[in-house]
């Protein structure tokens, strides 16, 4: 009953696949990402602090588009001869495209916040669950190993969207979450977000535990023995000797997981979470300008994914220990 692909330690058998962007010496990326984040932060601060009473859809963009739209209209009405008119039309179309994209920005910024919250909270909460799960798989007795195996295999063997449906529609978790004090108050996430967080956390815990498990297996077994030999208990030896090494091995897998969660958090839109994709779809439905708004949404996701990869490769470099895993590893 195994859904494992391959069992060799060190093989990213259960990887969700990495994006494969090497950022190191690509200033162009930073030239785009820097302003993007600066704008996002200013936007968030502005919307929460300066104009908190304003509904998301009523928010105005920082970059007025009236002149763009006007220029487009002028170009169309210029009445130039045929070939030139075609070119002008095309130019005007481009200006409309940019104008609509820019007008969507405030709502997408609000969506991006939800996406980031979903991703960061569930990967961290998932990690908290994943460490004991993986330790149980590797070092536990039968009573610990098999339940841990069953949980990870069941979760990794079914679609995330089906899991969200189980929690949201099947178990109707919202009715319980609603009772929890504080949910939905002020900046705290509302019920649907909490249900999504529960779903992503459980799902991510299963995948992360696989990464950590294969990383633990790739730590030389002599390390545990040596830990025991200096008088540490098994738990202490795992905690102080094996885990610090294994978790470093798990970083590449962890980066993949982060990227995966950024993208798959879009599935929360099906259970009414107003994250990035939900906002984009909403604007699209209101304006029928799907190309523009989905293009801008795609750019948002790519910016988030590339930023995440950059942060993770920085982290990987920072915690690297000479001779131990790190960048040399696949």
């Amino acid at each position, binding site marked *: *009953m*195994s*859904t*494992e*692909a*391959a069992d060799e330690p060190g*093989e990213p*058998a*259960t*990887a*969700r*696949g*990495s*994006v*494969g*962007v090497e950022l190191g010496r690509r200033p162009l990326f930073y030239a785009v990402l820097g302003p993007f984040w600066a704008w996002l932060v200013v936007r968030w601060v502005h919307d929460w602090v300066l104009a908190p009473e304003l509904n998301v859809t009523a928010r105005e963009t920082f970059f007025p588009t009236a002149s763009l739209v006007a220029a487009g209209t002028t170009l169309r009405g210029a009445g130039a001869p045929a070939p030139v008119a075609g070119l002008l039309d095309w130019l005007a179309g481009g200006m409309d495209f940019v104008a609509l994209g820019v007008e969507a920005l405030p709502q997408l910024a609000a969506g991006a916040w939800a996406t980031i919250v979903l991703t960061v909270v569930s990967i961290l909460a998932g990690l908290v669950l994943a460490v004991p799960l993986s330790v149980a798989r590797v070092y536990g007795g039968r009573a610990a190993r098999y339940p841990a195996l*069953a949980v990870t295999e*069941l979760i*990794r*063997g*079914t*679609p*995330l*969207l*089906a*899991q969200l*449906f*189980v929690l949201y*529609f*099947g*178990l*109707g978790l919202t009715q*319980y979450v609603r009772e929890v004090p504080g949910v939905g108050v002020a900046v705290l996430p509302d019920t649907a977000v909490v249900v999504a967080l529960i779903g992503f956390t459980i799902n991510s815990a299963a995948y992360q535990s696989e990464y950590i498990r294969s990383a633990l297996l790739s730590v030389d077994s002599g390390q545990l023995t040596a830990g025991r030999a200096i008088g540490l208990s098994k738990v202490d030896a795992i905690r102080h000797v094996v885990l610090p090494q294994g978790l470093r091995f798990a970083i590449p897998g962890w980066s993949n997981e982060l*990227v995966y969660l*950024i*993208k*798959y958090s*879009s*599935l929360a*839109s*099906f259970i009414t979470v107003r994250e990035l*994709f939900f906002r*984009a*779809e909403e604007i*699209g439905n209101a304006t029928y300008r*799907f*190309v523009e708004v*989905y293009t801008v*949404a*795609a750019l948002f*996701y*790519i910016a988030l*994914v*590339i930023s995440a990869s950059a942060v993770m490769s920085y982290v990987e470099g920072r915690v690297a220990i000479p001779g131990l895993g790190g960048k040399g590893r*696949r």
Partner: protein
Amino acid sequence: MTTVVALAVGEVGLGVVLQAGDWAFVLRNAEFLLLGAGITVALTLTSVLLGLLAGLPAGIIEVYGSGAVVGAVSRLGVLFRGTPLLVILAFTFFVNPVNVGAFEAATLGLGLRSAAYQSQIFRGAIQSVSEGQMEAARSVGMSQVEAIRHVIVPQALRRSIPGFQNEFTIVLKDTSVAFFIGLAELLTRGFNLFTQTGQSTAILEVVLAVSLVYFVLTVATNQGLDYLGRRFAVPDSGGER
């Protein structure tokens, strides 16, 4: 399977009552759901195949190509790997200027995204074949294309089986996202069942049944590809050196 039931039974404490009548509802609609499973399997196969047809050449180009072609291929790859499947499907179905059905749009979206990942699997596998293999092939007079075709690719394909297996199950699970464009695959059919009027008590049963079918399909896929891996295995001492 027992675990799924145990999981479900465990939830009784939360106040959700699993009624025999609701499972009977699932059983009455088993055929409807299994047809959906058929579509899920078909969509998985077409998408993985498209992914293979586009991903293998892309992987080869990333290793052996040069200049602008490599740049274009790897940029396209980042685009497809960096965008959520939902956005990709929005483009292939809603934005697509060519009017295609939901199945074709889903195949296109899942397939191209899979190609972007498969290209990385094959690229890694090709790079893991030692350089000496290429030199030896060139030394008996084969052209680069012949060497890639007869020496590098056969070895790389074998080495990419674990990654391919992983990718296959990811595609299988992600076919559920085609719910978004209304394709009547397994999850969509489950959703349509429990949103029928008067069936709101059977929601959990339906979703669990649907999940179970996915689980069985995932396990079967892995077992099948494991068998395939063994069937085509070649004694290998971990890379000819």
